[in-house]
């Protein structure tokens, strides 16, 4: 066994082990912390699968932003220590769950081991389209997201808006229009403020860089936007920035900017290139970067708003 294979095996065991810990930990908060570590380990698995774009997304969204969301939730739930949990599962339910899980995992493993020996792939089709609809994009994943399957990506941005509205709608009637609660209860101390002051500007730069190179190299609107979102959250934790009021016009416009620009350019494609969501050959790359720039804004605003939760105050 080569060194790399041994490392792979170790990584695999570690990921499964941490996942098992997350499921079985007695303490809620311990499970949450386990999940955050799990997200970061998973990013390494993606690197090993030659998926740097996914690894970046997993590290930023799956590990980072989801981590903040869950840790914040765990702390807020702990504060409501009296919260009553349902009855613990009976033995019958556990056996049933275990049997079902084993069945599904077993079937899945069997199918994975017997995938067709000549794997089907759209990579050749994507390579061919790189001179047409994906013109000028060196990163095929960006071409898939913003050109070949642009309809998915546009609608997925609408999902984000619905999620933001759904989160807001859980708040109290009297609080509507106000700002969400700050991400961190205690007053920030020196270390936190220093961290935000040093990290946020650097992170901002790196986020923009990741977005900008995304057309040709790993990165893009998702990863760049998620990094900007993370920097925004660090600044909010240090109270260098307050969460905006949810009725702020600027906030609403920033949230719809990505899908709205996507939709307008997509419809304009009917006139410019003869098909909805098509790009004229010579302008494909600048148009795609234009759309992505607005998507970065929407993602960078939507993720911190989703973590911040509903507008605060006016509790019954």
């Amino acid at each position, binding site marked *: 066994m080569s060194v790399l*294979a041994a490392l*792979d095996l170790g990584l*695999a065991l570690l*990921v*499964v082990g941490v*996942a*098992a810990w997350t*499921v079985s930990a007695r303490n*809620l908060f311990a499970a*949450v912390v386990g*999940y955050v570590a*799990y997200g970061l380990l*998973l990013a390494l698995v*993606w690197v*090993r*699968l*030659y*998926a740097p774009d996914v690894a970046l*997304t997993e590290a930023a*969204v799956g590990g980072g932003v*989801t981590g903040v*969301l*869950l840790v914040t939730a765990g702390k807020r*739930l702990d504060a*409501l220590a*009296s*919260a009553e949990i*349902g009855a*613990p*599962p009976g033995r019958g339910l556990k056996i*049933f*769950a*275990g049997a*079902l*899980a084993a069945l*599904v*995992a*077993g079937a*899945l*493993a069997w199918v*994975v081991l017997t995938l067709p020996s000549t*794997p*089907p*792939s*759209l*990579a050749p089709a*994507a*390579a061919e389209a790189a001179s047409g609809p994906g013109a000028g994009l060196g990163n*095929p*994943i960006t*071409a*898939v*997201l913003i050109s*070949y*399957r642009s309809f998915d990506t546009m609608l997925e941005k609408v*999902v*984000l808006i619905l999620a933001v509205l759904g*989160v807001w709608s859980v708040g109290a009637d009297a609080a509507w229009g106000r700002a969400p609660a700050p991400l961190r209860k205690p007053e920030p101390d020196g270390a936190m403020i220093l961290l935000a002051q040093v990290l946020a500007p650097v992170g901002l730069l790196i986020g923009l860089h990741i977005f900008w190179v995304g057309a040709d190299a790993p990165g893009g609107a998702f990863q760049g936007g998620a990094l900007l979102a993370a920097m925004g959250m660090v600044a909010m934790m240090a109270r260098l920035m307050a969460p905006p009021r949810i009725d702020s016009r600027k906030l609403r416009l920033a949230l719809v900017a990505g899908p709205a620009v996507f939709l307008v350019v997509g419809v304009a494609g009917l006139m410019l290139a003869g098909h909805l969501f098509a790009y004229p050959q010579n302008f494909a790359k600048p148009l795609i970067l234009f759309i992505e720039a607005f998507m970065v804004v929407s993602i960078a605003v939507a993720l911190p708003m*989703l973590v911040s939760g*509903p507008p605060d105050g006016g509790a019954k």
Partner: protein
Amino acid sequence: MTPSVLAGLVGAALVGLGLYGLISNPHPLRKLLAFNLVGSGVFLVFGIVARRGAAAGFAFDPVPQAMVITGIVVAFAASALAVALILRLAAASGKVTLDPRAWTKPGEGGQ
């Protein structure tokens, strides 16, 4: 064993672990964690499919990878909505149980 086959088995194990947690754990936040485990297992299956599809000079098939990126963002949005509901439920009622019986007022019947 190639890394992609290994990752596929990890994905299968994660789906199984998550499914077990989803069914057997009564706490909704724990169910949410378990759902995220299942989700990442599913994404890994996409990942090995992408890696196996390496062709035409690409080290991977870009289509499934793009789907994973979309999926990760959607899974995060779902987690945020679920967390908001759980916190509001706990704050409004002091309970986080999903057991329907806990929410039926006496005399209203139902299950």
